[in-house]
């Protein structure tokens, strides 16, 4: 069983690398064949320029990581990016934790009180249609009035993005306990909260895992968008903006920052997979991811 899982993990990693390689090859082929100054199709400007400023070579993007960072003494770009990533990572984890707490709490309340579900669920869904950027200034205003440090804005917005998948998946999981198991608990005269702890919650865990995976990446996005929207936070989101302004001197550095952001999302995702493997270690094969 373990070997089959390990083999499928290896296969997925290989496929991931191959896909990445194919994208790089496509990029380089277009860069080599495409017109340097861009082009028109039926008078529309649809063909991007392929010069080094717009489309740096893929190897340039990687080489960029080991170049000295501008205005950072003898630090190299990857060291600076690592520092930024760590900063963003901490806020993302805090946002994920807050979002999970809120999401699980809401799900439990909705599962316990049908009236809460009917009353609240539409607003929970509606909340996700609000563009984050529109919300950011308001959150900052409230945070400012509370005199909380600036990073709490990022955590709040990350939590705002990540609580939704958690609420939905947890609610579904809490309602998934089989009728026979619920009757068994009823035959023990077990109350609702005891049944929640002993039956509903353990049943919900496999349902919560995909929600947590979505929430983990959503949390990173929440923090990065906050960094880009509001000044003052020095994380990966800030780096993408900062580097895009230096694009003339080091065109590939923007992509280096984008890689850092992507890597951060992967790390968060991997953390959840790690938790999943641990929590689900005793579950039957077909329930595992």
């Amino acid at each position, binding site marked *: 069983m373990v070997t089959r899982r390990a083999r499928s993990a290896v296969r997925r990693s290989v496929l991931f690398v191959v896909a990445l390689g194919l994208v790089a090859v496509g990029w380089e082929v277009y860069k080599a064949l495409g017109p340097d100054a861009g082009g028109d199709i039926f008078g529309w400007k649809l063909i991007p320029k392929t010069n080094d400023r717009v489309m740096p070579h893929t190897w340039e993007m990687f080489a960029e990581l080991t170049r000295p960072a501008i205005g950072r003494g003898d630090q190299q770009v990857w060291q600076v990016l690592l520092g930024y990533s760590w900063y963003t990572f901490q806020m993302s984890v805090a946002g994920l934790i807050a979002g999970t707490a809120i999401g699980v709490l809401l799900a439990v309340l909705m599962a316990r009180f049908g009236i809460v579900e009917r009353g609240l669920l539409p607003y929970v869904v509606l909340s996700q249609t609000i563009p984050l950027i529109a919300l950011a200034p308001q959150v900052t205003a409230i945070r400012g009035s509370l005199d909380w440090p600036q990073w709490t804005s990022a955590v709040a917005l990350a939590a705002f993005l990540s609580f939704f998948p958690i609420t939905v998946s947890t609610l579904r999981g809490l309602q998934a306990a089989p009728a*026979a198991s619920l*009757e068994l608990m009823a*035959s*023990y005269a077990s109350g609702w909260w*005891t049944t929640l702890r*002993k039956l509903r919650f353990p049943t919900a865990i496999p349902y919560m895992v995909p929600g947590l995976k979505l929430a983990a990446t959503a949390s990173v996005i929440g923090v990065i968008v906050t960094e880009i929207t509001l000044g003052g936070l020095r994380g990966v989101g800030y780096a993408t903006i900062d580097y895009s302004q230096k694009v003339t001197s080091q065109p590939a550095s923007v992509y280096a920052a984008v890689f850092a952001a992507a890597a951060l999302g992967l790390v968060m995702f991997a953390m959840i997979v790690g938790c999943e493997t641990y929590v689900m270690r*005793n*579950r039957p094969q077909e329930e595992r991811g």
Partner: protein
Amino acid sequence: MTDQSAVSVRGVSMVFNAETSGQVDALRDVDLTVDPGEFVSLIGPSGCGKSTLLRLIANLIEPTAGTVLVNGKSAKQACADQDYGMAFQQSGLFDWRSVAKNIELPLELKGWDKAKRAARSQEMLDLVKLPDRGAHMPWQLSGGQQQRIAIARALASHPPLLLMDEPFGALDEMTREHMQAELLQICEVTNTTVVFVTHSIPEAVYLSDRVVVMSAGPGRITDVIDVGLGKNRDEDTRENDSFYKKITEVREALRGAELGDGARGIEDR
């Protein structure tokens, strides 16, 4: 008078979805008394209210009319006191708990301490002849083994009454006969009263002191047959003439009950 009986059902009716187009008379005016130590089977076509009757005894639903007493107490009180254990067709073991922890579930809910729980679950594992499976996960066991664990769980707190709803219905014939013999042994050792729902005539006859024959539309008891095969039944019992006679008697009672609305879902094997 009712205080001496393990189960006493008096004038019980159960109507689902009353006063809607989907109204179902699941049970009408049912009386049933089960004595302590007795093994009683409920048999009848699907939909005749066997599970409903069992669930009423277990206080999982409340009757529309009539009273249900367990050990002389209301069904609700008996439930709160854990006077009975239950086992269903699906073992209903929790995937995330080891076999031993599954057996300990009712004890945990009663607030037993850890050492006492562990000792009792081992005792139950010995009783169902799976002494070294405590650390396994339920899904690592065969269907028959899972069902034994479900029985062990139902009996873990030594309840005087065991309620079973087609517990062997999903097992193959060989395993099923084996489990029947073991269930009899276990009940003998633990002196447990059993109310047992089944589809199978031989199963009902083999296991029971009395077979309660039910019919549908509305669900009711049409016959009660004393089996009288004695307490010491074994594999040879299945070959006895008196065993076959009783099977025929139950079959005819069922056929008689079904005249008019057609026998469905009765296993003749």
